[in-house]
């Protein structure tokens, strides 16, 4: 058996599907449970804070709508990056990957601004039930975005060094699955935290 055959067998399971992609979907499934539990905590504690500041005093809907739109558009950049890499157009693949990471950083910047504003207004993890559950939920999501940005920048770096080619488009696809999941989680959080105040 040649090394190529051995590598191909290693990369694909008995189902004929790539092992890494199966693993990523299983991981995303487990993440549904994680975020589900954090959402339960937030929703059960919603409206039960005994002292302020309360959500209606702090949440800035126009501002968060803009950052939500930014994250949605980063998902578009991500699929365009994958499409370019699959076509072998590494120049645009690199540009779209960088744009995705950049929009992710803009979203994170917005979250840092929001957190610092809330702390300035007197809301911390320990202030009330809203503070504890809000920072836990959105902070966990923000940490996932930060991991995604680092992952995307590492792909940009790999592409820059010529180590990311059309042959390993699956690497970009797997990073994309993670990034879109982070976006999907925010779609739910935007509605539950900000619009159902």
């Amino acid at each position, binding site marked *: 058996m040649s090394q190529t055959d051995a590598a191909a067998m290693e990369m*694909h399971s008995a*189902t*004929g*599907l790539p092992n890494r992609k199966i693993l990523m979907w299983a991981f995303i499934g487990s993440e549904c449970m994680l975020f589900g539990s954090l959402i339960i905590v937030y929703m059960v504690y919603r409206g039960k804070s005994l002292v302020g500041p309360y959500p209606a005093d702090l949440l800035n*809907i126009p501002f968060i709508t803009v950052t939500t739109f930014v994250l*949605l558009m980063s*998902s578009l950049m991500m699929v365009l990056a994958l499409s370019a890499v699959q076509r072998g157009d590494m120049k645009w693949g690199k540009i779209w990957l960088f744009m995705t990471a950049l929009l992710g950083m803009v979203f994170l910047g917005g979250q840092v601004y929001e957190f610092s504003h809330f702390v300035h207004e007197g809301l911390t993890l320990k202030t009330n039930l809203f503070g504890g559950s809000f920072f836990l939920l959105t902070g966990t999501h923000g940490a996932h975005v930060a991991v995604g940005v680092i992952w995307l920048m590492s792909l940009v770096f790999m592409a820059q060094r010529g180590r990311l080619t059309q042959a390993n488009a699956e690497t970009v696809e797997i990073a994309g699955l993670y990034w*879109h*999941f982070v976006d999907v989680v925010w779609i739910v959080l935007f509605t539950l935290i900000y*619009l159902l105040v």
Partner: protein
Amino acid sequence: MTQPHEHAEHAHPSNRTYILVAAILGVITAVEVGVFYLDALKPVLVPILLALSAAKFTMVVGFFMHLKFDSKLYRALFVGPLVVAIAVMMAMFLLYGVFSA
């Protein structure tokens, strides 16, 4: 043993489809925020917002994550835990009266 071609992955959508989906996502987000500010819709705000959010969720998962086009095994790996998570959430929301007046 499952034959590889049984789970063959279909071609992914074109860039035009991706841009169209992104535009629809943007419009739905704008509608969500518009609905939020309309006092007349306050009594039905929760179901409307949840439906719009579910539509966005489905579009991103179906088109951007390619679940609509990829193997059913991926769908099972995602939808299975998602259904469990939603069921537990609904049970807890009912138990604690989250959406009750």
